[in-house]
């Protein structure tokens, strides 16, 4: 900014400053209004309400208090919420990485003729609503679902496996929903990987496992870091898949925000949990930027 201002001839500055920039304001005003009404104002209000004292039944008072946060940190249920969400976040991220990495490596190595088509297939689930994809999983994993049907009709099991309305179902659904995001991040970071490096390692006597561990993995690490950040953040804040595949039996920060806000109408509690989710986001971002600095 400073460089731009100083490059303007000094003699012209007073004249242009006196001219009121009507055009510029007209161009920016509609966007600024939308942003203010639906982003700035709501975020400020969210922060304020998280400090407001509420009477029973969700009636808001005018008193400010730290009680909403104090209640959260002293309640064993909310500690469980945080640990459930963190475990889901780390677990889902790790499994998603294990599923998406082979896809990204395959796309990197396959002939260009196939690459474009497979790339489109990889990202196409992003265009399908997560409600639809989660419904698909309910059909597959339900007690009378496709998966249990196949296992039971072939006589492998007698009673259906419990794959929905529990954490396992949420894990499966979340991993599937997040694979395209992870694959995109990985592919973006695979540009540095070239066959010559592996050939060099092989000629020096490295076997395939060593080549993977010492050559491929370090070269693709920035993509892995980006994909993990994205998936962790998305799984902490995801709501649709845990709500539907968890069947109300999996308790996470995101589902609790919705329940408190829409069902219990306890807005200050919901707002306080939201602020805590944002703090976890900030921490994840801080860890990511420290990790990325190490690569350079």
């Amino acid at each position, binding site marked *: 900014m400073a460089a731009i201002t100083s490059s303007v001839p000094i003699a012209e500055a007073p004249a242009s400053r006196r001219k009121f920039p009507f055009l510029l304001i007209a161009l920016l005003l509609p966007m600024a209004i939308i942003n203010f009404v639906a*982003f700035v104002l*709501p975020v400020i209000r969210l922060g304020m309400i998280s400090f407001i004292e509420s009477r029973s039944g969700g009636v808001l008072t005018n008193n400010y208090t730290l009680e909403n946060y104090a209640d959260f940190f002293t309640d064993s249920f909310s500690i469980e919420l945080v640990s459930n969400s963190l475990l889901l976040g780390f677990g889902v991220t790790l499994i998603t990485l294990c599923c998406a990495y082979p896809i990204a490596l395959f796309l990197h190595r396959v002939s260009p003729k196939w690459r474009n088509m497979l790339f489109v297939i990889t990202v196409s*689930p992003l265009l399908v609503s997560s*409600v639809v994809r989660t419904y698909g999983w309910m059909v597959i994993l339900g007690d009378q679902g496709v998966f249990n049907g196949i296992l039971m009709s072939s006589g492998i099991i007698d009673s259906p496996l419990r794959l929905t309305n529990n954490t396992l179902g949420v894990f499966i659904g979340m991993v599937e929903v997040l694979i395209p995001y992870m694959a995109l991040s990985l592919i973006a970071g695979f540009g540095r990987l070239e066959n010559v490096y592996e050939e060099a390692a092989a000629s020096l006597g490295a076997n395939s496992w060593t080549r993977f561990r010492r050559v491929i993995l370090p070269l693709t690490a920035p993509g892995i870091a980006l994909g993990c950040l994205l998936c962790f953040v998305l799984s902490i804040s995801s709501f649709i898949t845990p*709500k539907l595949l968890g069947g109300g039996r999996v308790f996470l920060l995101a589902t609790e925000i919705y329940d408190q*806000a829409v069902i219990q109408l306890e807005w200050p509690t919901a707002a306080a949990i939201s602020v805590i989710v944002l703090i976890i986001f900030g921490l994840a971002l801080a860890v990511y930027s420290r990790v990325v600095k190490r690569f350079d």
Partner: protein
Amino acid sequence: MIGQLTIPFRLLVACIYLFLLAPILIVLPLSFSNDSYITFPPESWGLRWYAAMFSHAGFAQALWISFVIAVTVTILGLAAGVPAAFAIRRRQFIGREFLLNLFTAPLLLPSIVLGLAILLVFVQARLLGTYTGLIIAHLIITTPYVIRIMLTAFSTLPPSVEDAATMLGASPFTVVRRITLPLMMPGFIASAALSFLLSFDEVVISLFITGPRLRTLPVEIFDYVESQTDPMTAAVSVVLVAATLLIIFLIERTLGLSKTIGK
């Protein structure tokens, strides 16, 4: 042998693709089931649930509401986002970076938090369960993408091209009509298509601010899936996926998808 794709590796990748596409692939045959509940493979086939969907008042109405909102959001989002992107790219003013970050910041906020925040403001402004409220809320999701895409589009159009046309005697109107608009077209269409799809599919924020009388299609599906398990949801899902594919197909035919994305 380096970089070769071994058979086990190919099989592994095929399994992962099957896992990735399974929920979408299962919905299509299920939608043609004539059974009263979910069985797979269906015992009888037919279009029963498609007929049921179109006579189901909730879904038919929600489809129309979602369509109206998505079209309005697309038009208003372009009307607000394109001039803002133009100003940020072409004009020098103090706070340019700040405005750009502010306008694209809603992308960083988890939608569950943004939904709650919008609820808290709209409940005071009496915007819950109204078209106005839903449209404003969807605009905050679509405009960051419009601005990002249009910034790229404007940067591929150097001012010198327009200056050259002016120097050759074109009037400002002709410059806009013959130079600026045609070169901007892929950006406009990409922004419009993405806005429409984002608004049409948006569910988390809509869940917070829809009312009993004004519900979008994804919200209606969400509630239906939560309470009922019959193949009707599969039929609705297929319609939703087909609509998405139709939009992408139209863009592909008119412009070419790769051209639209810009690279």
